[in-house]
């Protein structure tokens, strides 16, 4: 059950050689890329400088 890879008959080239949803390494790379993307998004929103709103003028 663990580790069975039925993607050996697929011959991928280029981008799909590393990122595909058939081989175990392709799936692993997609997972790592997704987690990295989510981490980058979180970091971006956490670290971006907060906009300072100008003080409202007294009426």
């Amino acid at each position, binding site marked *: *059950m*663990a*580790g069975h890879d*039925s*993607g050996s008959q697929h011959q991928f080239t280029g981008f799909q050689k590393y990122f595909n*949803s*058939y081989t*175990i*390494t*392709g*799936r*692993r790379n*997609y*997972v*790592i890329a*997704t*987690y990295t*993307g*989510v981490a980058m998004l979180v970091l971006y929103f956490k670290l971006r400088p907060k906009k300072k709103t100008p003080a409202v003028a007294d009426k």
Partner: protein
Amino acid sequence: MNLSFFDQFTSPCLLGIPLILLSMLFPALLLPTPDNRWITNRFATLQLWFSHLITKQLMTPLNKAGHKWALILTSLMMFLLLINLLGLLPYTFTPTTQLSMNMALAFPLWLATLLTGLRNQPSASLGHLLPEGTPTPLIPALIMIETTSLLIRPLALGVRLTANLTAGHLLIQLISTATTALLPLIPAVSLLTASILLLLTLLEVAVAMIQAYVFVLLLSLYLQENI
């Protein structure tokens, strides 16, 4: 002192000393002591047959490395089974109705299976978070969904056991209260309620055994994916 329906789930305490540890240790007293004789008594033989049955059932789908988990899974199964069944006796506290205890069992064991997988076969463990043959546009969403389903497993394990046992005990109390309350008023309806109570008790015996089995079976399935 007037009791509410939920007082049966209060962790027992005597003079400030929590008795839950005693109620968790008690099932072990019911198991026969191992002897150095080859053939002992009928009770010990029965217990041995049963523990062998559980071990064979759980270990058959696992590979050799998974057999290291035989002791912990079999003892967990016996523990949960005995606690669940003893809790069906009147006025007996059931430790597995406490979410804290079930989470304390589920979370570390699930984490152990996860870390075993990440340590021994990291590529396969991470790769299984994306189902094979997923169309490209769906990949990020499906990875997040699979991650969520992975992280929710310990919660589901613990809450499943707690909810099943709590609901069962509560139902038994409600229906038995209805039976005794109706007895002086409408004995016929009380008899009907008593028969429902009998059927419910039989169901709860089955649920007690099934929930213990499901808990351990799911853990062994999570182990199968990772070992």
